[in-house]
């Protein structure tokens, strides 16, 4: 029995190590390429022939607006994380705790809306934003507005969590004379720290990947680009010959804060996705 167990454990270790290699390989490659000193295009070997910091120096030098793009993305991410979480808490509380006319209808309509391919509406959103003056060089507030405006529909996970807080607590508080608003601020929010952190984390991570809509809103204006829009050009556009290693360096810089944040808050993330998966 014990020998059998040992063998099976050994196999498991081998598989896990293999998996880890596969999972880490692209990231190792990315890091190595970002330090490559020789010509910046694609190469067919992994380990650079000479290491250098030139790619990072380029990003922070005068020849590139990388700092600006990074700042844009960070601004968007922070604002979206805060505002979106607020919106989601409001919506989840209303839908979880209060019973009002049209509640079911509202939830069903939102469910249906989620089935439309979102970016079909891009061009329309662009002109709405343009009317507000939030396109091109003013794309950053525009992107924040769009992300926050429609975030109410992403209430599932948070509402699911609120649902698990016993309603009897609310009833007791109401008997004590607390208003609904007080219940939310003084009771529900303090009890929901994990889910709030989860919501903020997810909201914070999304803007780093926003390529499609961001490129649409900020078209032709470098000042309004985010990192994804600016850096995919280095890979896809022929104007940027030999930018591949710079792309890798930029990618590492983008990945670092998000990854660190994610690793620190992983516990909450697991709680969030698990809860969300069960509740749907």
């Amino acid at each position: 029995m014990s020998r059998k167990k040992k063998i099976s454990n050994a196999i498991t270790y081998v598989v896990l190590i293999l998996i880890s290699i596969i999972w880490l390989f692209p990231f190792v490659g990315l890091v190595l390429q970002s330090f490559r000193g020789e010509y910046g295009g694609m190469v067919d070997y992994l380990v650079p022939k000479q290491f250098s910091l030139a790619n990072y120096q380029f990003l922070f030098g005068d020849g590139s607006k990388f700092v600006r793009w990074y700042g844009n993305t960070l601004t968007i991410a922070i604002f979206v994380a805060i505002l979106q979480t607020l919106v989601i808490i409001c919506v989840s509380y209303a839908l979880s705790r209060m019973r009002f006319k049209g509640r079911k209808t509202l939830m069903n309509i939102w469910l249906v809306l989620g089935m439309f391919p979102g970016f079909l509406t891009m061009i329309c959103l662009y002109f709405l934003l343009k009317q507000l003056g939030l396109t091109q060089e003013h794309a950053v507030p525009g992107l924040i507005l769009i992300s926050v405006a429609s975030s109410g529909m992403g209430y599932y996970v948070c509402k699911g969590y609120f649902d698990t807080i016993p309603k009897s607590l609310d009833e007791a508080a109401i008997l004590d004379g607390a208003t609904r608003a007080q219940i939310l601020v003084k009771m529900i929010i303090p009890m929901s720290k994990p889910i709030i952190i989860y919501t903020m984390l997810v909201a914070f991570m999304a803007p780093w990947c926003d390529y499609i809509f961001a490129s649409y809103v900020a078209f032709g204006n470098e000042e309004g680009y985010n990192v994804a829009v600016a850096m995919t050009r280095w890979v896809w556009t022929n104007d940027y010959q030999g930018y591949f290693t710079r792309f890798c360096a930029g990618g590492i810089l983008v990945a670092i804060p998000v990854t660190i944040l994610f690793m620190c808050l992983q516990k909450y993330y697991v709680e969030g996705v698990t809860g969300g998966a069960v509740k749907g």
Partner: protein
Amino acid sequence: MKYFFRWLGKDLKEIGITFREGDWKTKLSFLIMGFGQLLRGQIVRGIAMLALEGGLLYFIIDFGWNYLSKILTLGTVETYKEGRKTVYGDNSFLILLYGLLTLVAVFALIYLWRLNIRQNREAELRLKRGKRLPTNGEDLASLFDKNFDKTLLALPVLGIFVFTVLPIIFMICIAFTNYDATHQPPSKLFTWTGLENFKELFGIGGQGFGGTFFYVLGWTLIWAFFATFLTYFLGMAVAIMINKKGIRLKKLWRTILVMTIAVPQFVSLLYVGKMFAVDGIVNAYLLKWGWISQAIPFWQNATYARILIIVINLWIGIPYTMLIVTGLLMNIPAELYESANIDGANPLQTFWSITLPYMLFVTGPFLLTQFIGNLNNFNVIFLLNQGNPKSMALTKNAGSTDLLVTWLYKMTINDSNYKIAAVIGIMVFIVTAVISLIVYNTMPSVKDEEGFQ
């Protein structure tokens, strides 16, 4: 329909009665919203009503009417040249967009007007019965207590309406117009064409591209199926391995896997896509080690590309499932496993008879959302190979790994073919809705929402 008219009749009658039986304050409120409320001391309500009426009327008259009045033709004034200077005519796009917005404003005004009349009626009846009206303070306070839901939902609902619902209605309208490369505002007008675009899709009267549509739809479904279930089962396998008794460094394994969630996809997927190019690093090492004699055209061969995309998606997707399953595995009652052990079941049997059914039951809704998410999984396809390779058998720029969404994205960006993109968007919606409806209605764990509380 019948009910609607019955309801409308009843409503009109009530409005009539309110006017006939109402005092002069109520009667004047028919014209100046909030007038009655103001005079009866409900200043907050009165001002809110008045402000809304003023604002909406101003919007409709000053801005919206100009567009709404042209919505049936989508504009008739052509752009022309004065010497070499261009004088822009009507902009069909803005007429449709702001026309819809104005239409919404008109409906909002009618609704508010109705609400205003009802409030007047109720207030009047209450006063007649000798009851007092809620004070301003009470009105305001109720927004944080009894009517807290209205406060909480007002902004989110408004935001969703303007930035989600309105654009969707707009895109549905586009499907019934001829908005394409040769009818682009601001210089060119477009107009309503009825069902022409749908006829083109299904090839009624002319050369359709229905064949390509069904090809892309087929791959979209295949992709969503494999992307969902392969990641699900393999993710579960990985989770079970990590959580196995006697395996150490659980946290390390998990952290390594979770990297793919943390690193933004535009970085990781673009890099991974390059890795598998014909001249990329994977082929280079396979050649160097002598495992292959000629580079494998991963992205050029339709079948390889499809398989590879599903495999790379595993790399992205397994960590998610692994996290979820890890959380859930702990919840399975240990007694179930113990009794199975006593019965002499091997690990595989316990998996089939205990773990899997439990997981499927609990994660049903998750699987559905994953499936729908994968139907519209733009990033993976687009960042990896933009839907290539193309094929002579497909029209309208479609490629063998294009999903419906990436295909319609190409149509709008590369070909400015908005009308067809809108039609395909509607099709995507129909497909998603049908699948969700079927699955939703057969799933046990979603039916009883209140049951969890």
